[in-house]
């Protein structure tokens, strides 16, 4: 809050390791809770598998459309499903935040010397671990289903990283919404409203070349599409690393902004609590 100018530099020098240590402890707390719910973990892995094979079978023939320009639809779809899954999983972070508020856990942390940034980054790290595992599972399932990843391990790593960054963007926004609105219904409503449009206004299922013009314009502004394209470029035979870096950098910048917004929301929350 308002530290006196004289003591600020000293406390800032100490603050960096504290943020990291607290992020580590708080992430551990969340992951511990997660592994205690194996059924939940299993469901989280099965859901993207269902999507992959459902959409893979449903749209199998679209590769035949002139101008599609991609050999196997499953291979095309994998980065799309990974991005869709990353967004879907992190959009609900705000509900967990509301639970922590209702229980009083957030207030306990806020009246303890817990790093505010760590409260948010721990959620991001926890979500990144979950999303990363899911993404790896989807990549593996795609491979088993006959998809090829010419981009190799590096390409796969980019797909996983892009998913984690996308998850951070939506997780940060969802947390901020949870703290300001403090209503589960608001988050559910927002997610129901935006999830499918954001998914389909991207090249996850269909190349933009086949879209109407207005859709192409919207898609270019959709961070989900940035993740899909960055991942798909990296998985290609000769990746256009410039394009991967541009979209990945955009995602990273947006992720930092969204975490910043959610940290700033603490002030708003504390004013009204």
């Amino acid at each position, binding site marked *: *809050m*308002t530290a*006196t100018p004289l003591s600020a530099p000293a406390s800032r020098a100490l603050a960096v390791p504290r943020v990291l240590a607290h992020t580590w402890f708080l992430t551990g707390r969340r992951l511990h809770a997660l592994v205690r719910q194996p059924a939940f973990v299993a469901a989280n892995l099965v859901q993207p598998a269902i999507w992959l094979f459902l959409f893979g079978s449903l749209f199998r023939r679209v590769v035949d459309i002139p101008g599609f320009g991609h050999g196997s639809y499953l291979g095309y779809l994998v980065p799309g499903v990974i991005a869709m899954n990353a967004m879907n999983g992190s959009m609900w972070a705000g509900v967990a935040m509301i639970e922590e508020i209702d229980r009083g856990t957030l207030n306990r942390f806020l009246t*303890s010397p817990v790093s505010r940034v760590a409260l948010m980054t721990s959620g991001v790290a926890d979500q990144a671990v979950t999303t990363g595992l899911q993404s790896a599972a989807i990549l593996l399932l795609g491979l088993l289903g006959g998809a090829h990843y010419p981009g190799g391990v590096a390409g796969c790593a980019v797909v996983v990283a892009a998913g984690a960054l996308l998850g951070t963007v939506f997780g940060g926004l969802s947390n901020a919404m949870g703290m300001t609105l403090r209503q589960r219904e608001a988050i559910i409503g927002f997610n129901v409203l935006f999830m499918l449009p954001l998914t389909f206004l991207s090249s996850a299922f269909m190349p933009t070349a086949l879209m109407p013009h207005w859709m192409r314009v919207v898609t270019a502004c959709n961070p989900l599409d940035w993740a899909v394209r960055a991942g798909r470029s990296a998985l290609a035979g000769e990746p256009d690393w410039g394009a991967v870096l541009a979209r990945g950098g955009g995602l990273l910048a947006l992720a930092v902004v969204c975490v910043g917004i959610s940290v700033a929301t603490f002030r708003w929350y504390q004013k009204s609590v």
Partner: protein
Amino acid sequence: MTTDPCAVRAHDLGKTYSVRGVKGGVRALDGLDVTVDRGIVFGLLGPNGAGKSTAVKILTTLTRPDRGAAEIEGVDVLRRPDRVRRLIGVVAQRSGSDPRATTRENLVLQARMHGMSGPAARARTTELLDRFDLSEVADRLVRTLSGGTQRRLDVALGLVHRPAVLFLDEPTTGLDPEARTAMWAEIRRLAGRDGLTVVLTTHYLEEADRLAHRLAIVDRGRVVAGGTPDELKGELRGDAVHLDLPAGTVPAEVRAVLEALPAVREVRVAGGGVSARSDNGPAAVPTVLAALERAGMPAAAVTVARPSLDDVFLRYTGRRYTPGDLPGTPGSPGTPPAATSPVPASGAAAGEGPADQSTPSASREAAR
């Protein structure tokens, strides 16, 4: 800052919450002043919505006041919240423990957050598990524990870093009588150790009376009276004597008989019976009963009560004490202070009858 600061000092705290649909918002605090000496249990007593919880939220750095100043152990709460957080332990109204972690994990995490090393955190955890009788449930998930056990964990969490001041916000609300008694014993023990200062908010008169060395009675965002429980009660002269009458007896006639007796005064018809005050309640009882016997109107039951905090509250606020327990909205800013002042239909007119049946102090009314 003085060389020997008190544990807590709050001056002229004011806070108004903006609430949708309420013009001008809801004023939770309206110039609250509090000073707490070190090493005592200090009680903030008042009905729900009086502003106690808001005061605690400000003093524990959770929220900021619109006006006023506060310090803990001489440290400015508004300027140095980071330092204050190391000085205070907080047991909030809502639990705050992580239900999906074990008792031990909760304590270790809290210790690490306060900067303890791994071994130190584990050692302190073992110590607290032992002290709060939690060793048996150390490795159970918190959500499987009873309410009373969870509350003990909450207190242990507040003490992990050996704070100078412990805030307990409604620590026994929602506990069964047995767990409440155990919590009271624990709170008494806390103040006796290491000069810990305990700031306790409660809407239970009995709890404040039994635990607090000093009290501040809070109503509508201000402190309306302060002192030791005995001082506060001592300002009211005399015991309350209450007569229950058998069916068919006219209270007004009984009142007439009692008004003729010098042993009692302020005779009033209250709640189907008759109430009076007396400088020495137990001594007045035989006289009163004999007079009624002679008049052919024997009483069904008689109770004598020392002046209670209920009476103190009435004196300073002009209202009967009603805790105003609204399930689901404890201490929420949505509860305007004015909503907690319904005047009971019967007792209020008489004013000084024995404690209302709904208050815990009713159980203390056995004659001495």
